[in-house]
């Protein structure tokens, strides 16, 4: 196996995207994604069983397309990488079972890796950063499945979770709010669009976990200094809508959308920047599907600039869940001489970020 610029195929199935990506070292060869998003529209959110069924049907066709697109054969691969968690249990199991079968059938080493850390892995691809991942790096991940701020000392060996949502993910809050406002699914783009016509200061919605008892101080941090909570916000939106309706007034949907969005991006960016400042993070990567949100990018850029933090947002296709990020992290681990995970490991729906690559199970280490 070449450790210089290994050819690695990455498989992603933790939510509703079936992704197969192929990289050669830090060069992206293909990022092939099949999404079941359309099948979730009528439910207003991702239905795990529907996503899992779609992964089974999409896997081999996505694999075939990725190989064709990259112009490589399975024989040429140096390694295979797969998302082992965190994510939806049944969805993860399809990708992991497929990856193991691929490893057995090709004889290639398999690396079971962390989905959240893989989101940071796209920073190594192409020209996201001119000279590879910079030092003093942090990552703010915002999507329908997660809301996290990470400190990345070394992407292959030292990642720390500084804060995360304690209930809904930000993207989930968008979806639920969009449903309250009758805007359809996915909620993020719909609310972002409508928010442009509204007044973000019309209604002051709550910023979750921002009270002093949760925040504490830099010296004596409270229990949720860098954590978020969005479930109260969704309730506040519902109550606001009800108040207008009860009073017989037309619901000012655009104002509510704008005010909701302002509350979300305000608390996300203020806590993320605070975490960066207090942990010496000077380079922040913004990832996840909600990274495409216009107002989030705008406010993150503004606040990072004011705090002397360089903000980097990868291409949208690399921000949403995909196999290329899995391949990129896999390649990094191969280049660093990391050990493969064997084929006996299990999936872990709540895999912590400190477990970047799973160690081989005992029966593999003979």
């Amino acid at each position, binding site marked *: 196996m070449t450790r210089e610029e290994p050819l690695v195929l990455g498989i992603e199935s933790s939510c509703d995207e079936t992704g197969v990506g192929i990289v050669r070292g830090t060069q992206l060869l293909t990022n092939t994604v099949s999404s079941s998003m359309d099948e979730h529209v*009528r439910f207003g959110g991702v239905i795990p069983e529907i996503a899992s069924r779609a992964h089974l049907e999409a896997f081999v066709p996505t694999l075939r397309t990725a190989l064709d697109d990259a112009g490589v054969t399975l024989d040429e691969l140096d390694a295979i990488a797969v998302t082992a968690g965190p994510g939806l249990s049944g969805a993860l199991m399809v990708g992991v079972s*497929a990856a193991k079968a691929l490893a057995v059938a090709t004889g290639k080493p398999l690396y079971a890796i962390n989905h959240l850390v893989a989101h940071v892995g796209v920073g190594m691809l192409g020209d996201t950063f001119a000279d590879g991942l910079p030092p003093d790096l942090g990552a703010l991940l915002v999507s329908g499945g997660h809301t996290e701020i990470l400190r990345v000392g070394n992407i292959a060996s030292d990642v720390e979770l500084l804060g995360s949502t304690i209930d809904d993910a930000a993207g989930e809050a968008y979806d639920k709010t969009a449903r309250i406002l009758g805007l359809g699914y996915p909620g993020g783009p719909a609310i972002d669009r409508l928010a442009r016509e509204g007044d973000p200061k019309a209604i002051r919605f709550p910023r979750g976990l921002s009270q002093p008892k949760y925040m504490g101080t830099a010296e004596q941090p409270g229990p949720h200094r860098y954590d978020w909570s969005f479930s109260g916000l969704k309730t506040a939106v519902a109550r606001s809508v009800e*108040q207008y309706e009860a009073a017989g007034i037309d619901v000012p949907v655009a104002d509510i959308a704008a005010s909701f969005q302002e509350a979300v991006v305000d608390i996300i960016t203020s806590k993320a920047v605070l975490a960066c400042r207090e942990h010496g993070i000077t380079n922040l990567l913004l990832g996840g599907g909600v990274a495409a949100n216009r107002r989030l990018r705008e406010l993150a850029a503004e606040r990072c600039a004011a705090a002397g933090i360089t903000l980097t947002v990868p291409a949208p296709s690399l921000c949403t869940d995909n196999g290329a990020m899995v391949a990129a992290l896999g390649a990094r681990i191969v280049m660093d001489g990391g050990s493969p995970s064997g084929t006996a490991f299990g999936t872990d729906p709540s895999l912590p970020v400190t477990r970047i690559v799973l160690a081989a*199970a005992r029966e593999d280490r003979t």
Partner: protein
Amino acid sequence: MLLLALDTSAAATVALLRDDVVVGRFGSADTRSHAEVLAPAVQRILADAGVAGPDLDGIVAGVGPGPFTGLRAGLVTARTLGFVWDVPLLGVLSLDALAFDAVAGRAVPAGGGFLVGTDARRGEVYWAAYRAPADGSRLPELLDGPHVGAAATLPQGMPLAGRAASLYPDDLDGLPALATSDPDAVPLARVARCRLLAGEPLRDTAPLYLRESDARVPGPRKRATA
């Protein structure tokens, strides 16, 4: 004829058969670890037999019905192996494996009708009705099914092969030798082989879930009115 068979409709089972001879076999009673155990089992069985994947004449996949997550682990494994090795995929109804066992073990009389039932969880069984061959053939004939339903709703007066019999003894008349049996990759492979030899068509590997996902379309939000 060299066939690799996988059935994950209940337990995770893998078998390698050369013609009618079982060359290797794996079975795990744990119904929740299919994604862990399946690939290592395939690897070990082929290595022990000195068989390379592309040498296979077919990969036989039990297509259910069965609990969703385990079933998918088997099907995505079979499809991926088939793709990489360029080996044909042969789908077989998992209940056919139990029906084959019932006939092979002479648990049912020639020409007689019988049922096959497995655990569908949630108080229900996956089932189908078969007739044992009367002409010396080895393959039972599928008469009705597969279905999913409560044990009490199955046709009366026919013996049943499969674990459903021991789960619902008050409702079902179990064949004693097969009352705790699950579909297995060995008889699954034999069903596929008999069909191939007889020139009969096999199924594709579309999973038989028999149940919709539990997802509900959310109702309209209740409006507050003045």
